[in-house]
């Protein structure tokens, strides 16, 4: 605990040092170097706590915050797991920043806030009372907001910052109300007091709704996701990685902490709400992602999908827990938490890769990229691993956690209540749909960016990025593979976390032969990532060997075949929007009201034909546009109040006083 707190203190002190030093290079190295060291120290402490068998939970009370409470910090298994996620992502982002930060145009807009953002996220997962939690939460939000608007010269960034600020304030307000309800009229703000207190069903349900609004808006649940694809890509790439890979996980932490730990026994219909939201979020998120041709925005939208998958796992755990099916609940919760870790690794990796592409070419628009696998081989390799992992392909880690989620879905018939029982298979179908669409989405992302022919001069002349960035990407690529082929170790590490929340953990996996994972029983289902990996490697190598030994290994280079009509212009290739056209036609016409219009020039006109595609964001149109419009109209009306005479102002004040007094009289 002392190590963790010192790490946080170092992070909090870094901005002062960064601002004090004039030289940009020194400040960059100092901030990211010390950030890396602090994250690693904190990571070691968190992992030590997670793996320790001592059963002690270190806690610390600081004389800060509200005078009669103080700031409580506690590192139990759940906090330790999420602290591991935060620190792992933070350490890699610092490593990446050591190289990437050199290209920053205005480092003073990034360097002071970056360690603060890291410290804020660590404090959120450590907090053990409502006040500290909310303070850290807001701290984290504001620090990340400052990072989002770092590149404030662009109009898009300013708009993103504005939307983010509104949504973050809204989310914090919802959480404030939720904790207010939890603390009760006596004001028991400590988590221990909240856990001990009894909450009436109506009150608990209200808290759940507020949490779905508060934590859900930070995580990116549909329809509260609108800020996310604006804000995440606007920040510098290592901050995007932190926001998408790590900060959304902190939001998941808030949800898990309150719903599974503080609220006590869930009600039966909670799972239905969470499952429905999760399923819709997963499918809509990936469909949105498929429609994008900005690489970073595609990744940000894809975060929405993964949040949906995590919420599906959490919803399943709630459903099983409500009916007392502890083993199934443990399976579902393990799957969700496993996916939390996995998404942090591959999404950070992919954002690092997008940042590397941005550094090398100055482009985020995939329609102007292509062929980078030749000029950035290491980045391309790491990005490919990330794409395979996020598309849930065996033997990588994304598949391991989705497989566990599917196993939890298969436990659905054990439920007694008809509502959740019928909902679970449908959500399973949505999950399968989103997994299949994700693979298409990343074929597009990798194929258009790294494969095919360059579509612009910067893409044709790009070079590989620096070693720090490559090291950060390769680190996560290795983790993606390791967690995929040794899922049993992760499941066992999650044991105490899950056990503390649902009262039972998944069976210990490390004793199984050949490191197989067996969630329920061997006759029911099993998966062995290690063997699958070994088999595939062996089969591929054998095939290559046999053919090269006994058949031909001659090779000749020539122009592309393309059925005899190769065209030198890179415009004849498939573009990002062209690739998504069939899917847009199949799904988009319903979901996005997508329309296509081809305008041919009249005969004799030599102008080009134009294809116009309109994709509407219905969520924005239905939920946000009316609110924005109402606020605008109201503001216009209230504007008149600025030009009243003093007499009118005085009478207004008097009127308000009378109304207030009347209300008070009626109320009491």
């Amino acid at each position: 605990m002392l190590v963790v707190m010192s790490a946080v203190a170092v992070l909090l002190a870094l901005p002062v040092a960064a601002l004090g030093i004039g030289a940009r290079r020194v400040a960059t190295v100092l901030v990211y170097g010390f950030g890396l060291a602090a994250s690693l120290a904190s990571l070691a402490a968190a992992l030590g706590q997670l793996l320790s068998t001592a059963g002690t939970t270190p806690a610390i009370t600081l004389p800060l915050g509200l005078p009669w409470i103080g700031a409580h910090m506690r590192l139990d298994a759940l906090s330790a797991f999420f602290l591991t996620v935060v620190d792992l992502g933070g350490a890699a982002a610092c490593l990446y920043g050591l190289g990437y930060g050199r290209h920053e145009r205005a480092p003073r807009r990034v360097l002071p806030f970056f360690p603060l953002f890291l410290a804020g996220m660590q404090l959120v997962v450590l907090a053990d009372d409502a006040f500290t939690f909310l303070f850290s939460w807001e701290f984290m939000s504001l620090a990340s907001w400052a990072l989002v608007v770092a590149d404030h010269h662009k109009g898009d960034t300013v708009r993103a910052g504005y939307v983010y600020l509104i949504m973050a304030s809204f989310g914090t307000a919802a959480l404030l109300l939720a904790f207010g309800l939890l603390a009760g009229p006596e004001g028991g703000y400590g988590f221990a007091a909240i856990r001990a207190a009894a909450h009436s069903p109506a009150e608990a349900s209200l808290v759940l709704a507020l949490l779905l609004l508060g934590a859900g808006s930070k995580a990116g649940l549909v329809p509260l996701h609108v800020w996310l694809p604006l804000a995440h890509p606007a920040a510098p790439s290592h901050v995007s990685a932190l926001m998408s890979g790590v900060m959304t996980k902190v939001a998941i932490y808030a949800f898990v902490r309150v719903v599974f730990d503080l609220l006590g026994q869930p009600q039966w219909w909670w799972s239905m709400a969470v499952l429905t939201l999760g399923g819709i979020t997963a499918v809509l998120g990936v469909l949105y992602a498929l429609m994008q041709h900005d690489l970073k925005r595609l990744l940000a939208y894809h975060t929405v999908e993964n949040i949906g998958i995590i919420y599906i796992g959490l919803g399943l755990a709630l459903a099983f827990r409500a009916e007392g099916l502890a083993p199934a609940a443990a399976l579902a919760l393990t799957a969700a938490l496993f996916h939390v870790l996995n998404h942090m690794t591959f999404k950070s990796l992919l954002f690092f890769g997008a940042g590397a592409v941005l550094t090398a070419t100055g482009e985020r628009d995939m329609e102007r990229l292509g062929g980078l696998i030749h000029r950035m081989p290491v980045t391309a390799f790491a990005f490919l691993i990330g794409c395979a992992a996020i598309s849930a392909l065996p033997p990588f880690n994304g598949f391991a956690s989705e497989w566990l989620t599917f196993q939890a879905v298969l436990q659905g018939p054990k439920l007694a209540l008809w509502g959740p029982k019928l909902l679970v298979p449908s959500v399973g179908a949505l999950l399968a749909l989103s997994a299949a669409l994700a693979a298409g989405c990343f074929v597009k992302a990798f194929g258009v960016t790294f494969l095919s022919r360059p579509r612009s001069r910067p893409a044709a002349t790009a070079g590989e990025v620096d070693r720090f960035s490559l090291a950060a990407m390769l680190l996560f690529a290795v983790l993606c593979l390791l967690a995929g082929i040794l899922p049993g170790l992760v499941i066992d590490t999650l044991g105490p976390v899950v056990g503390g929340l649902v009262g039972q953990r998944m069976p210990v996996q490390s004793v199984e032969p050949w490191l197989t994972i067996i969630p329920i029983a061997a006759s029911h289902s099993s998966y062995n990532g290690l063997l699958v990996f070994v088999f595939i490697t062996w089969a591929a190598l054998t095939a290559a060997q046999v053919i090269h030994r006994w058949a031909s290994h001659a090779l000749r280079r020539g122009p592309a075949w393309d059925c005899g009509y190769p065209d030198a212009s890179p415009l004849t290739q498939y573009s990002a929007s062209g690739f998504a056209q069939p899917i847009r036609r199949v799904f988009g016409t319903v979901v996005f009201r997508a329309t296509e219009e081809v305008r041919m020039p009249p005969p004799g006109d030599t102008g080009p034909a134009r294809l116009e595609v309109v994709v509407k964001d219905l969520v924005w149109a239905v939920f946000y546009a009316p609110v924005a419009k109402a606020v605008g109209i109201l503001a216009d009306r209230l504007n008149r109040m600025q030009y009243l005479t003093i007499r009118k102002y005085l009478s207004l004040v008097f009127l308000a006083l009378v109304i207030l007094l009347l209300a008070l009289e009626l109320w009491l």
Partner: protein
Amino acid sequence: MIIDLLTQGVEMILVLAIAPLLTGFVRKVKARLLRRQGPSVWQPYRDLLRLARKEVVLAENASWLFRTAPYLIFAATWVAAALVPTFASGLMFSWAADLIAIIALLGSARFFLALAGMEVGTAFGGIGSSREAMIASVAEPAILMMVFTVALIAGSSQLSTVARFMATAEAGLRVSTGLALFALIIVALAENARIPVDNPATHLELTMVHEAMVLEYSGRHLAVIELAASLKLLLYLSLIGCIFIPWGMAASGGGITGYLIGSLLYLAKLGVLGLGLALFESAIAKMRVFRVPQFVGAALMLGLLGTLLLFF
């Protein structure tokens, strides 16, 4: 232990060895149905050998991924095919992956095939990959819903357990089983690029999918991809055989006689299913490409319906 390992090895070699024969058989039957003589059933082997001996002509801008993808596709498909019980259930490594993982392995193969289509940057490769992504986006959930139905009936997603359960009287005749069978057949047609979704016999047709993706491949690379395609067809027919007509499959440690009977029955099942495929393909016309999502979407709905019906 050694015997178990040997049996597993025999199964891996068996699926690899008879996959081209199955493709040749289906082609031969189709040719006979059209009153053509057709090439011999051994023709696919000759094609593979010929391709393997030829030199590879590689596009100038093809990268290392283009050259490794065929082997990865082949490896993933072969491992998946070897994990489906053929003549015996409960072989040594049958627990390494359940049905969901087998489907996902095919997904891995498809992922790399689609990337290979995008690699050289030609219009044909792009069209193939893009359409493959569209078809897969419906076909994959459809087959997973089929898996759900079967897994809920048998109480397991482990194929060996499913095969053993489906052979008992307890499995019985259910509406859900029938729906699942229909769903699997539709998905098998779509995934193997058969008529009515795609035409395996054409090149240079604007509606093609699979052939468009592999257009730039030649020589040994093409041979490996063709072999993987044959393996995939074999896998789907074995899957139908293993889940819906599991009778006669030997149990693990069933002795040589059991294995022999199982193998003969397995070949017979493949023959019947191949015949059915050839008949169906000859009797139906190819669909417009944007009808395909509806056709495969029907499988998704059948699978979901099959699952939901189990609760009543």
